[in-house]
């Protein structure tokens, strides 16, 4: 919630809707030079950035998790750090460390990997829980405290972590608390046949990532964030978000439902999606589209549901179909004679 530390003035003037859309389309188009046929996922990644959230990309190896993270980072002209998580990675490698400077005869802070606009954490589940939890404070509070001194992180700040769900040997699965800090989890999915073919041609000759030029910068992103914050959310939609989150807590298939933070991040991401769509208001469609990526990784299914091989994605998607859309005028009208 440190996002509120930055006032609108600090972030810059909000951007008019068409300009925002053009900028967003530019970034998406740029990334799509590298990642073929994954527009929805690319847009979602951008939306998470604009919603001041963090992204967890989870999929089997080789589908372009890291490439997406790097492409996003490269498209924006801002500081980017990449951390390869390994079992021997230390917390100080992430946050930074104070070292004694012989010349000044004083401790000097050497910033860690998180001191950047975009932090790409590769294979995050391979690091020890100690190191993983070092990320906690950074991600949520956007600050780092080392030796009693607190250092503010920059804005925008986004952690893009990837993890591989298949190869679980020698890994430390992310604890619940840490998973909850990721705004959205997305699965890349295999590309379709055409995209895969195009990819073979494109990547066969050279590395397109190297040729990627930034199309935006940190200032622009800050202005985009300011714009997203001003997107209108009608009262019934706030209730709708609360309803959705509340339903996950009562669902018989779920052992653990979504947290209040989930509702907050759901709405925030919905604002970003609406803005990317060129709208100045959120619709329930935005929320419905985000429910699975934003909520599914935060809930824990019951053993029965696991036995029945019901994934959390499916359970959450089902739940949404049971909640009437706010302001819906089909359901409640029949109680009046006059209609």
């Amino acid at each position: 919630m440190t996002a509120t530390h930055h006032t609108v003035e600090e972030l810059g003037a909000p951007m008019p809707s068409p300009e925002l859309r053009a900028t967003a389309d530019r970034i998406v188009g740029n990334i799509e030079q590298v990642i073929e046929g994954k527009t929805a996922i690319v847009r979602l990644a951008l939306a998470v950035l604009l919603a001041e959230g963090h992204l967890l990309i989870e999929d089997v190896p080789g589908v372009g998790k890291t490439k997406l993270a790097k492409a996003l980072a490269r498209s924006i002209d801002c500081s980017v750090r990449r951390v390869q998580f390994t079992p021997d990675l230390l917390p100080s490698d992430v946050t930074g460390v104070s070292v004694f400077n012989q010349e000044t005869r004083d401790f000097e802070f050497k910033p860690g990997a998180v001191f950047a606009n975009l932090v790409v954490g590769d294979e995050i589940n391979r690091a020890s829980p100690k190191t993983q939890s070092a990320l906690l404070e950074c991600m949520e509070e956007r600050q780092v405290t080392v030796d009693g001194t607190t250092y503010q992180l920059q804005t925008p700040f986004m952690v893009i972590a990837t993890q591989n769900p298949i190869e679980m040997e020698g890994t430390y699965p992310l604890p619940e608390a840490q998973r909850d800090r990721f705004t959205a989890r997305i699965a890349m999915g295999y590309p379709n046949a055409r995209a895969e073919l195009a990819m073979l041609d494109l990547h066969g000759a050279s590395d397109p990532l190297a040729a990627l030029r930034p199309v935006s910068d940190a200032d622009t992103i800050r202005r985009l964030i300011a714009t997203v914050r001003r997107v209108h959310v009608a009262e019934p939609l706030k209730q709708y978000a609360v309803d959705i989150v509340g339903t996950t807590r009562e669902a018989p298939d779920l052992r653990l439902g979504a947290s209040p933070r989930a509702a907050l991040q759901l709405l925030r991401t919905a604002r970003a999606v609406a803005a990317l769509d060129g709208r100045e208001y959120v619709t329930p469609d935005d929320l419905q589209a985000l429910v699975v990526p934003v909520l599914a990784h935060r809930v824990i299914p019951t053993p029965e549901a696991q036995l029945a091989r019901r994934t959390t994605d499916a359970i959450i998607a089902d739940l949404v179909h049971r909640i009437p859309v706010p302001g819906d005028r089909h359901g409640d009208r029949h109680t009046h004679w006059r209609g």
Partner: protein
Amino acid sequence: MSQRRGVALVAAAATFLATSVLSTIFQLYSWVLYSFLAIAVVVVVAILARTVRIPVWGQVLAMLGGLLLLVTWTFPSGHELLGFLPTGHTFRHFHSLLTAAGQDIQTLSVPVPERVSLDFLTTVGVGLVAVAVDVLAVGMRHPALAGLPLLALYSVPVAVQNGSVSWLPFVLGAAGYLWLLMTDHIEQVRRWGRRFTGDGRDIDTWEPSPLAAAGRRVGFAALVLAVVVPLAVPGFSSNLLSRIAGYNNGTTTGTGTGTQLGTSINPISTLRGNLTQGQPINLFTVETDDPDPGYLRTAVADQITDNGFQPSPPPHPQPLTAGLDAPTTGVSVSLKYDRYTASVKAQRLNDRYLPLFAGPTQVRAPGGTDWRYEPSTGVVYTDHPATAGANWSVGYDSFRYQPAQLRQAPELQPGDPIVRDNTEVRHIAQISDQVDALTAGKATEYDRVRAILDFFSPKNHFKYSLQTKAGTSGSAIVDFLKGRQGYCEQYASAMAWMTREAGIPARVVVGYTHGTRLGNSATWQVTSHEAHAWVEVWFPAFGWVPFDPTPSTEITGAAVFGWAPNPSTPDTSSGPADNGKDKPGRSAGKSADQGQHGGPGLARSAAAHKTRTTTWQYWVLGVLVLLVLLAVPAGRRGLLRRRRDRTEVRAVTGLTVDPAGGPPDVTVDGGDTARSAAARSAAHAAWDELVDSLVDFRYEVIGSETPRGTAERLIRTPGLTGDAADSVRRLAEAEERARYAPTPADPTGLRAASRDVRTGLSAGVPRHRRIAAVLLPRSVLRRWRGAVADSATGLTGRLGAARDRAYRTVVPRRLFGPRTDRSA
């Protein structure tokens, strides 16, 4: 599994309980044995068939086979193999039994005596019902449907008997049916596992579940209501709404009683008595080309006694075969008449008199006995009851007497034998004074008779009753004239007596009214309740003219004589008389003094015409009302659409009034300006219209779908294209902005878009659904249904809350003070 043996046995028992209703149509109890045998054979065969796992159709065949063997054994023709295997003889025998049963049903009255043919019919019928019940309840596992064959069984006596059926068989049958339902349900629950109470205790197989107590209570209450409510409602039970009977069952020389096969009428007319009226018994039907038949005469009581009149021995009997005297002999040529033919079919009538219309010209009497004819009375009779099951026909002249003509009748000649024989009377001073007072100043015979007839009017406190008042005068006629209540016999006897007292020849005629017309046919049904007595008065040159002093409001099929309006009709001199009970064709009587030009014949046709007109008008009116009712939902739908269109117009004009864009600074709720609120409601209205159209055309309406989602779905599945697709997107966006955006969309053109979408939607459904959407829009119907359900729920909720409040206020414990255990 036990192949549902328990249910099969209970189904058999329920069928057997339902047969108890047969007790109302049989005199004896042989049907119990046959019913039991039939049901037992069917259920045993069914259980055996299920034990060897025969499919349902095989079970039916097996049961029918078992039933066939049973009837072969119990109703043998004597040519069976081994006594129970049917042969061709057997089936011919069955055929003859069925034919005989058909005849018995025609001729016998309820309750019927024991007959082999009827027992056969009972066995087969009950057996078939048992088969149907077993197949439905056990084979097809729909015990609720088994109520239909049971109901069919129950409806047999209801159809046969004219009156109501006793409540006891109904209760037995209904209880059996409920038992069957309960057993089946318990069995179904047990298939799921153990039954247990709410607090977890197990329940034995035979034990009723406490959880189902409410169901049992509902069943019991329904049964009690079904029995008690009809008793309280008059008209459901003939006991509470007794009607007239001319049928004499109690007083003097006993003739037919309701329980015997044949029924006849007592030709003795008494001045005192009481009429015990049983169920009406169908005596005979009359088919006649006379549109407005009069009364059927059987006997003439012309000999006066202290108590009334009785038939005198026929002075000049002659064989019927010798022919009849023409009714027109000695009658003034100016008297108009119509010639009709009637054929009578006896049902339960068995009498020694033939019921015939007045003025018979030709009688084709049933054979088997020598019928005789008495010219002075016009009665055809024999010496023993001989009309059972017989048919006869009569040609007759129906005279149209008119008051003006009757007034001009010649003076009575004292020497005339008719006058001499029919004016004999016992003089009683009070009666003489009364008659003198009535006839004083009346110039003609007709006016004197009318004076006496009109005396029996409700204005003089005469009323119809099945019982006369007891008197102390020692004279029956004086008692009646004092008590002034009685039935037709008293009225007819008293009038004949008083007419004779005035020196005018009169006699009492006993017979029947024409009864009730069957549908619109030319056939009339006469029952024992239509027996009647009336008066004939002799007019020289006119013959015997009928008069009916009994209040016609109480008589089914009372004739209205144009020359002698019934004294009970409210106003005898103006317009058509209304005597309530009659068919419309007869209710329009003819006033006495109108006879100058028209006469009854004319009046009849006018009345009939009028009736047809009114019936026609009622039909048209009914159809119109029906059409209007059917059109209500469609009208409601059109009204809604128009109102929604107006919403858009309002929003759009609100915009154009203020083109500069300076919104009127009126903020409605939510901080909206009036202008954007109008635009929002226009979008909502257009969207509502779309949703209603979806419901009308039976497209799915999904509550968790967003407007945008609905639009995309409609473009996908009914395949909206072109303008319709653009329009539905337009509507969705407008609705979306109206709901969620700070500023609503421009409302212009929403109405056109709405129309486009509706056209597109209607193109995607079959024609019959399109028609249904226009004629009976589901959106309206569903909303009404929902509103009804909600109102009902709300009402029950409020009632429950009120009850709870009442309980809180009036706590029984508080009334009786603190409980002992608490104070201890």
